[in-house]
């Protein structure tokens, strides 16, 4: 199996300067390797740093020590030390990060938001929009909403737009942070299918799923975060 992600001896501490320099240690000495076709589910109680680790893989959070190696084409890119323009490249073609929260430019139509990752890798506008439409349809977003900005949508609709945007381009590394959190049963099924399809095409997936049923449905392996929590001295 091709290894897609190698996390080596990673530690994370937050220093809150505005609150008197309080230091919050999240984890240390963390190692994790994820192969293509795997879906590794991060587990552990609240505060063990599941979301923090996901964000560090995406380089949204700083990685102060250790290495986070992502296979980008034929190269390994260390997300902990890569130059911003390299990270942007990795995000454009290799890593998809799907969170519960939609963050978009006001005024941009849903269809354009969803097709944007395709446009960014050079798919022509017509085809990108057609594929986006297909996915939105699958995720049961009414066609009447496609030309509107999702900013005014309900929480569930926004989340599905976010999922569509994350899955539209089959990127080889997927980070899924509670993608099904506020979805109803029917929509959850669609998302499960999308995750399985991604796995089957060989994506390396790291996920956080609160719901045990979903976890069982997609997971190939659990990764217990609590083992790496810094022990109180």
């Amino acid at each position, binding site marked *: 199996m091709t290894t897609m992600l190698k996390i080596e001896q990673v530690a994370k501490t*937050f*220093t*809150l*300067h*505005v609150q008197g320099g309080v230091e919050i240690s999240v984890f240390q000495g963390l190692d994790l390797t994820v192969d293509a076709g795997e879906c590794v589910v991060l587990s552990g109680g609240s505060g063990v740093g599941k979301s923090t680790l996901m*964000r560090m893989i995406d*380089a*949204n*959070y*700083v990685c102060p020590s250790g290495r986070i190696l992502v296979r980008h084409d034929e190269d390994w890119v260390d997300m902990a030390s890569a*130059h*911003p*323009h*390299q*990270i*942007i*490249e990795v995000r454009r073609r290799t890593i998809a990060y799907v969170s519960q929260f939609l*963050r978009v*430019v*006001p*005024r*941009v139509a849903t269809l354009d938001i969803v097709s944007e990752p395709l446009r960014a890798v050079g798919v022509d506008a017509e085809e990108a929009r057609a594929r986006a439409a297909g996915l939105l349809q699958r995720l049961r977003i009414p066609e009447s909403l496609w030309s509107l900005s999702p900013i005014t949508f309900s929480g569930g609709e926004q989340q599905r737009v976010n999922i569509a945007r994350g899955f539209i381009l089959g990127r080889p590394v997927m980070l899924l942070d509670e993608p099904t959190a506020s979805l109803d049963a029917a929509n959850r099924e669609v998302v499960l299918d999308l995750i399985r399809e991604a796995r089957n095409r060989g994506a390396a997936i790291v996920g956080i799923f609160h719901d045990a049923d979903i976890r069982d449905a997609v997971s190939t392996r659990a990764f217990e975060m609590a083992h790496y929590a810094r022990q109180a001295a």
Partner: protein
Amino acid sequence: MIGAAQPILQADDVAHYYGRHRGCEHVSFDLFPGEVMGVVGESGSGKSTLLSTLYGRLTPTAGRVTCRTRTDESVDIHTISEPERRLLMRVDWAFVHQNPRDGLRMNVSAGANVGERLMAVGERHYGDIRSKAIDWLERVEVDAERIDDLPATYSGGMQQRLQIARNLVTGPRLIFMDEPTGGLDVSVQARLLDLLRGLVTDLGLSAIVVTHDLAVVRLLAHRLLVMRKGRVVESGLTDQVLDDPQHPYSQLLVSSILRT
């Protein structure tokens, strides 16, 4: 594609002092084609001084600013001759001022404003100049019917969009923006940001955006410099700096804004 080419602009330990007062110092970075860099900080942090020094309007007290021209030459923008500098400014570069009145000729029509850069680089066909002006007005969502109106009759948001059209008509590769949404209503800001983002992406422009508005850089910039008292205290990927700021000042800056 970002990173595939040589930097379009390089700042190497750039400083500008106003007499003994520090405007900015020790600023170094590489800006790549297609990359948008935000410079944030409060008033007096030196971000506008830095922008003026990078643009060549202020002479650096130390360091140098090198840029790559469209003919792929590397030039020090503070030592090139004035004719070369002017050509660079109107062919390769653009500058969008906070106040559109600083970037527009208020006593000539919108069409003449857009056409000026074309005429400055030698276009001498009225019909061609006019049709390019109409095309650009439409791209920045200004009604082409208003091409012969004076900018003074435009709203603030339209004036700002006109300024952008006037700047982009010659197809520059690097655009400097000083608080581009500064004086505008919130609703107008969103429209302008969206427009700018689209243009930057579609045209593959590089940009340096100076602003105190973190929402602006989150939408536009790939990476950030956080400035305080004339120095860069933190730099990096935009969302990384905003979501996991390391320096005490960056943390203060981020925690001081209302979450959206």
